Structure formats: structure tokens, C-alpha cells
């Protein structure tokens, strides 16, 4: 069960990263792009299992 939750959490973090990258590249607002970048860091770390 614990392993399942961990894998699911990793997958969700990966999805967040993909979503933020997508948003970053489709946005017309530099400030929004920066927000995407900063908020992506913790999700990217978790998706890479760095914790």
C-alpha cells in the first residue's frame, strides 16, 4: 500500500511538472512563466525521487 501511494504520488508530481512546462511554453506572460518555473522545483524534485 505504501509503495502504491509513493508511486502514485510520483506520477502526480510528474503530471504537475508536465503541466507546468506546458503552461510555461504556451503562456504570453513572462511573470506567469517564472511562477511556473519556481513552483515546478519541488514537484520536479519529488518526481525524480530526490527527497
Amino acid at each position, binding site marked *: 500500500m505504501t509503495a502504491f501511494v509513493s508511486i502514485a504520488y510520483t506520477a502526480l508530481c510528474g503530471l504537475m511538472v508536465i503541466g507546468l*512546462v506546458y503552461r510555461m511554453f504556451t503562456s*504570453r506572460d513572462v511573470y506567469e*512563466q517564472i511562477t511556473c*518555473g519556481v513552483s515546478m522545483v519541488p514537484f520536479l524534485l519529488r518526481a525524480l525521487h*530526490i527527497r
Partner: protein
Amino acid sequence: MWSVYGPLSFKSIAYTLRQVISVAFDKASNCGKSKYSRSAVIVLIVTVAMTAWSGRLIMSSYKVEPIVPGPSVSDIVRLSHYFPGIEGTPGDTDVYFLDSGNPGGTVLVLGGVHATEVAGMLTGVLLIENAQVNQGRLIVIPHSNNSGFTAQPAEDAFVPVFHIQTEWGERWFRLGDRLTNSVHQWPDPEAYAHYPSGQILSGSEVRNLNRCFPGRPDGLFTEKIAYAITQLIEAEACDLVIDLHEASAMYPVVNVMVAHDNAIDIAGMAAMTMEFEEGVNIGVEASPVGLRGLSHREIGDHTRAKVILMETANPMMDWVRGRTTEDLLLTGQDEFMLKASKKGLVRVPYDEQGVPIEERVGRHSSGLQQILSTMSLMYPDSAVQVEGVPKYAEIREHGLGHFLKNPAEDI
């Protein structure tokens, strides 16, 4: 749970990122947004750089500092040897055996039960690298809560690593969290009910190893670590357990030995001898019967071992402190603590000299050796004779680094 760590996710996510970037580029150029694509690339590069920097910092906490086995180290085993339930987890840690080969007692020294309180861990290292055990056995666990060494307390701005200067260079050590790393045990409950007493504590205390003794095999992660230590004490028939801690200088229980009922005689005599022989003041307190989960209560109640816990003063743990730097950790000098001291709020002698690491490790080292000598006198069948370990005055005079070995010369 631990098997999910691995590089597979890195490759797959890197591939996905590449795909998304190419799709996003195409879309952006189709929409005539190249200016924003350029800024997005720059932001992405900065993001990846920030992630790499943070990741490197986080992963450095998992790198265990080298310890050089000294002349009496006869064996090194993993704690999971006594309870396989923690094998392969970040709670597993090295247990050092210093066996004289001569009949006598067995004493377990716990350092790093709280990974913030580094004097305990450093005293353990000092013992492992210097002790010559002539009678009985010494067992040392320098990183009792190994998971705690992989994290820093939230909002405290601790440095993850600190350095001690020696004649041949510098040694590095990790500074951890008082609690088990929350990524290894999550989530915290609203309230923590200690097993087996049922005492209710704050939820985060469920990750405090020194509130989880005696532990249980089917409990939460920290309870399992406590259970492994209790199993070790039983399996090795330890006569005495010495648990080394630090506390904030404004906390009432500081520069003190806290003894279970079964060891109050040893603690009292050792404290008096320490004051008479070395001029180092240290108090003695009886372990409160109603405060459950602590080593000095539960190990004494649930095993045949006598238990003494020692506390020194670490100003870095005080809330009124200023900047939390490596210097503060090592010297204990802080202008705000000085102000607090002048107002009579600090429980230990405190002036411009602070409370350096030499003072704190020296106290632990002397106290520990006085306890061993006293036990050997009072209980000759459980005698443990140790020499070669510097005492308070020597550590203050030469510095702690003088007694730390060079890992490069470890063959």
C-alpha cells in the same frame, strides 16, 4: 516502499520533458510567440539549475560521514541485525562493537537519538576512534536515528553539514533534525499515543525516537527503530545504556544526568566524582515516572539495563538565538543569548565565550567515563574499563579536532 527509489523515473521524465518542450515550441512558433518561447526556455533552464542545486543539497544529507574504527573496534554490524523490519530503510545504521575480550560488563552508548544534538554523535565518534577497552564491551551507535540525519528542522535554517578543523585538515559531519525525516514517516497524526502507556503527546512527537521507546515491531517507522535498539539491548545483555543529548541553554534540564531508578546511585556518584576530580559541575535528576517514551524511563522499565541520559547546553537550539550558522553550532557564541544570559534567563554559565563544541563533547566524554568507572567500582561483575579517550580538560586544551582521525589513513 524504499525500492521505488531509482533512476528509471529520471529517464522517463527527462524524455517526457523533451517531448513537451518540442510540442510547446512548435505550438509557440505556430502562434508567433517566439519571444515568449525564448523566455520560457530561459526560465526552464533556471528551474532545472535550481532543482539540481537543491537536489545536490538534499542528497548530501544521505552521504554518511566517514568514521575511522579505532584500536578496540572488533565488529561493525547493522542495527537491522536485531530487527530485520528496518533492513534497507534509512533507519538502519552502523553499530560499533569495542570488545576487550576480557570478561566484564556491556555498555551501550547512544549518540544521535536526536540528530540536532551533535555533541552526542561526536562523542560516539570520539569513542569509536580512540577508546582502548581493557575490560568488558562497549557498543556505540553514533547515528541512533539515522533518518533524522537526512533532514533539517523546517523553518530553522540549519546548515546541513558542519566541519571540524584538525591538524591534518577538516572532518565533516551532518547536522540533522530532532525528529525522523518526515518523508520517511508521514503523515503525523493529530495526537500521538505512546505504546504501551497510551500517554498522549503532540502529533509530531510520533517521529521523536526519544518518545518512542521501547518501540514495537508492527509500529510506525520510529517505533520500529526504537524496537530495534531495545532488541539489541536484550540480545547483547547490556548492563548499562548511556544516551547522549543536548538541550537549549534556557531549558531547565541541562548540564545534567537523568537516571532511571536503577542507575541513580551510579549517576550520583559519577557526578560527584566528576566535580571533585575535574571541577566540572553536573546535576543529577531522577527519570520522571509519568513521562513516557524516553530512553531513561522505558529502557530501564522494559529491559534489565540500567539507563542514564546526559544533557549539555547547545545555544543553537535556543529560540532567542540570532543567525543559525556553522559558527554558532561550533562556538555557541550568540549576542542574543548573551542578552538573555544577562537577564538571568540562561540555565548554564554563559558569557562571550559561548558554549563551544569542546565544552559539550568534553562534558559528555568525562561524564561517560566517570559513569563507567563508577559502575566498575559499584558493580565489579559489570565492569567496563576504558582508556585513551580524552576527558574534558584535554578536549578544551587541544580542541576536538586533535582527537579525530584522518579517514584517508584508514586502511
